[in-house]
């Protein structure tokens, strides 16, 4: 396996591929920062530089990995060189794996100096004498740092038809709280938000019964619509803060590390919408943080009034020592928000939900972990290229690999198909979907299947995390390795090696069939 890996690496060097890539990476690391225009702050500049250099490096090495993955195997098969390797006592799966290792060695050889260059370049900028002490401190605390985040526990938004039906019947009995039996009380405690909302729809139990006795497409569609509405309403109840209402969040930090956390600044990171996504504006917000501590924010204990733009992330630095260190609230940071706007609701989407950021390490190690996730991506991309070239010619393999990557990266489109219940989309006049077709069902099934797979691959944001100084945890890294390399990479490798094993390497016509 190693001789094949070394051979693959040698080919890249001899064909000057490494030189070309190295030059391109030099341009990315040192050239791109010269072209970027930031908001003028040191923090903004460094964030932009990190985002673009890491993003461009990922894109360039991704394309190179795909190209090499397709080329190294397909071309050797087409040039018949692979015949000379295949007649030697090396199992074909080892040859395949050797090729993959070769590409990964090349990627490592390119990524290590690139990562080091980015690290030293960014640090040099942060140490520049042109920056004031305040700006330097802000950079060190908010970007060139590794900060862990704590979110509120996800609210229960699942729905069981059987449970919702039973609960609806129970509510329909019109009992008061003290009339329920012990068993009924216990059952009521397990009901989720959407199931509770459905109990207010008197037609729901009837529809469930009809769906069991005489299921028709219309009844099933009505049921599904009711249920999806219940989920949406329940979710919205956690997200929307209407004028005059307030909202509490409680963030739990591991009590064992509270002392450590309180030594550095803690940040509240949030993003909100104000029903003006297409034309974001600034709005007034009122926060009060640190209930149960003697260092609340704002210090006077009232609500902090601030104007912030909608549809963008914001970070508020909180005072050192804001995390309660004693008592029942130890480690719990409480955030209280009030919407004192007269008309406009403020929406905190669950997926963007507020979080508390606290310092837990240095930027260097975080960069290392982020680069490793990018490295895992490159591993999967090169495996896809090798898999395609195990049974296809070079151009077709490249086309197929690109297609796979494009589909897997189109998560937004696929999610939209699921959200809008098909490819026809929602009728904006009625706000509902007109009529589901078989094609819609196929599209939804396909999108769900692809998304469940792509989440394993693209469900990480190393570049975003690094540019916002958020920690990429070791557990995240392990999860990325498992999902990207072991599961997805393993599947791709298994299929690729199987096809390569079946391949007749000496066919006179590459388009001929295998028998």
């Amino acid at each position, binding site marked *: 396996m190693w001789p094949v890996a070394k051979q693959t690496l040698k080919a890249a060097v001899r064909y000057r591929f490494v030189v070309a890539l190295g030059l391109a990476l030099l341009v990315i690391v040192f050239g791109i920062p010269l072209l970027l225009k930031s908001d003028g702050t040191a923090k903004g500049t460094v964030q932009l530089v990190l985002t673009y250099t890491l993003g461009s490096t990922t894109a360039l090495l991704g394309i190179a990995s795909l190209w090499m993955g397709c080329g190294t195997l397909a071309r050797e098969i087409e040039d*018949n060189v692979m015949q000379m390797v295949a*007649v030697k006592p090396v199992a074909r799966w080892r040859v395949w794996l050797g090729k993959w290792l070769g590409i990964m060695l090349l990627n490592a050889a390119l990524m290590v100096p690139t990562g080091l260059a980015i690290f030293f370049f960014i640090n040099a900028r942060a140490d520049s004498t042109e920056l004031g002490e305040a700006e330097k401190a802000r950079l060190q605390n908010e970007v060139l740092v590794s900060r862990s985040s704590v979110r509120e526990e996800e609210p229960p938004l699942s729905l069981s038809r059987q449970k919702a039906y039973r609960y609806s019947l129970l509510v329909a009995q019109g009992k008061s709280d003290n009339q329920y039996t012990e068993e009924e009380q216990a059952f009521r405690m397990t009901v989720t938000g959407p199931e509770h909302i459905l109990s207010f729809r008197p037609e729901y139990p009837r529809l469930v019964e009809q769906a069991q006795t005489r299921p028709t497409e219309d009844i099933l569609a009505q049921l599904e619509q009711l249920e999806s509405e219940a989920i949406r309403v329940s979710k919205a109840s956690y997200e929307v803060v209407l004028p005059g209402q307030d909202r509490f969040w409680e963030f739990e930090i591991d009590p064992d590390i509270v002392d450590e956390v309180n030594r550095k600044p803690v940040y509240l990171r949030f993003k909100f919408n104000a029903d003006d996504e297409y034309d974001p504006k600034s709005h007034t917000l009122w926060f009060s943080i640190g209930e149960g501590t003697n260092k609340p924010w704002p210090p006077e204990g009232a609500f902090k009034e601030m104007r912030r733009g909608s549809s963008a992330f914001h970070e508020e630095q909180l005072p050192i020592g804001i995390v309660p260190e004693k008592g029942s609230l130890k480690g719990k940071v409480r955030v209280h928000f009030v919407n004192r706007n007269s008309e406009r609701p403020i929406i905190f989407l669950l997926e963007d939900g507020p979080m508390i950021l606290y310092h837990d390490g240095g930027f260097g190690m975080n960069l290392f972990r982020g680069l490793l996730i990018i490295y895992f991506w490159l591993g999967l991309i090169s495996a896809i290229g090798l898999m395609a070239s195990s049974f296809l010619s070079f151009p077709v393999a490249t086309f197929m690999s690109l297609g796979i990557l494009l589909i897997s990266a189109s998560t937004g489109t696929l999610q939209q198909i699921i959200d809008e219940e098909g490819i026809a989309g929602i009728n904006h006049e009625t706000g509902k979907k007109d009529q589901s077709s078989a094609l819609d069902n196929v599209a939804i099934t396909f999108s769900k299947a692809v998304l469940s797979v792509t989440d394993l691959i693209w469900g990480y944001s190393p570049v975003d995390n690094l540019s916002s100084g958020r920690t990429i945890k070791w557990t995240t890294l392990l999860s990325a390795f498992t999902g990207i390399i072991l599961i997805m990479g393993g599947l791709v490798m298994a299929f690729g090696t199987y096809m390569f094993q079946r391949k007749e390497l000496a066919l006179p016509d590459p388009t001929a069939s295998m028998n």
Partner: protein
Amino acid sequence: MIQPEWRLSPPEGVHEQRLARRRDNTTMSSNETVISAQGLTKVFKDFWGRPKARAVDGIDFEVRQGEVFGLLGPNGSGKSTIVKMLLGLLYPTRGRITVFDHSPRHVQTKARIGYLPEESYLYRYLNSDETIDFFGSLFHIESKERRERADQLIEMVGLGNARRRHVGEFSKGMQRRIGLAQALINDPDLVLLDEPTSGLDPIGCREIKDLILTLSERGKTVILSSHLLADVEDVCDRAMILYGGRVQAMGTMSDLLANRDATRITAPTLSRDTMERVLSLIRDDTGSEEVRVDNPTQNLESLFLNIVEQARQKEADTSGATSGHRVADYLRGDAAGDRADRVLDHLTRAADEPTPGQAPEVTKPAETVDVDKLAGLAKAEPAPKAGVAPKKEENLDKANEKLGGLLGD
């Protein structure tokens, strides 16, 4: 300077002597079956799985250890397809094929096989050293051993002056040579040579043929696929003649080539009296007047090689391929313990140690004796059996005695 024990281009006459020994049917072939094919069929199909060409059609054959087996046929007759099925590069559509009692796709079996393809299928950006080292590493040969073998092989194939040049810069002949070297890095028990002399000059052709003989004498099995009749005739024990993917003829070379209606005797130049006595004896014995006497001629290959041998005395430095190099030690095996090599050494040493001051002769016809035919003519003992070297020497002695008696010396 160390005198090489054996060169790829042996001194004049040795090649002919070796060929003569083969014709004596004294190869080391044993009864162990190395390759077995039954009903072997290969149909090439198009993208949609429709049959396009039947390259090999129901072929049965076996090759035993130590044999040099020729696959002979015109272009497109199925030779290369058979070779590639033997290597596991193509899969039979029907029939069964085993190599060393295993499927050709059995990984460990491949450690015993060396393959020279019909074209140069090598990495163009590697130099000779790297090429041999890479293919050697695939056999899990240790680094030190690999380097030693690479040195010997590169010298053997005459690329000592070109070991730092990339294979992509090589001429076709040089590429064949480096291809041959990589095929032998593992000291294979079975060597498959697909058109091995294609693109080689006559010196290279002769060297390849001598190498095949050397390998065979060490008990290696060689499959030679060629459409060049002379190649097959010179070195093969048995051959299979293919046409249209089917076997048209198969047997030992002597069986295939023998003209049972005539006999040839080759001897040193005879006096007129001796000649008359011999002719008279033959006429009396056969009762036929159709007896022809002429001087044997050497073939064009021998003439060419002798001329080149002389020219090489003035050889200048070259970055291209050279010739006449020593066979790699590990390919020669244990000379002390190997009967075939002892005979080989005997022959080569005699030829390699010229009398001091003796000028090399340009042309000297080889002295060969067809023992089979001679024995048949004398109505004496049956032809010797294969694989017994001492018996072979006895046969040679007996043959010489008979010839002496026949000629009245």
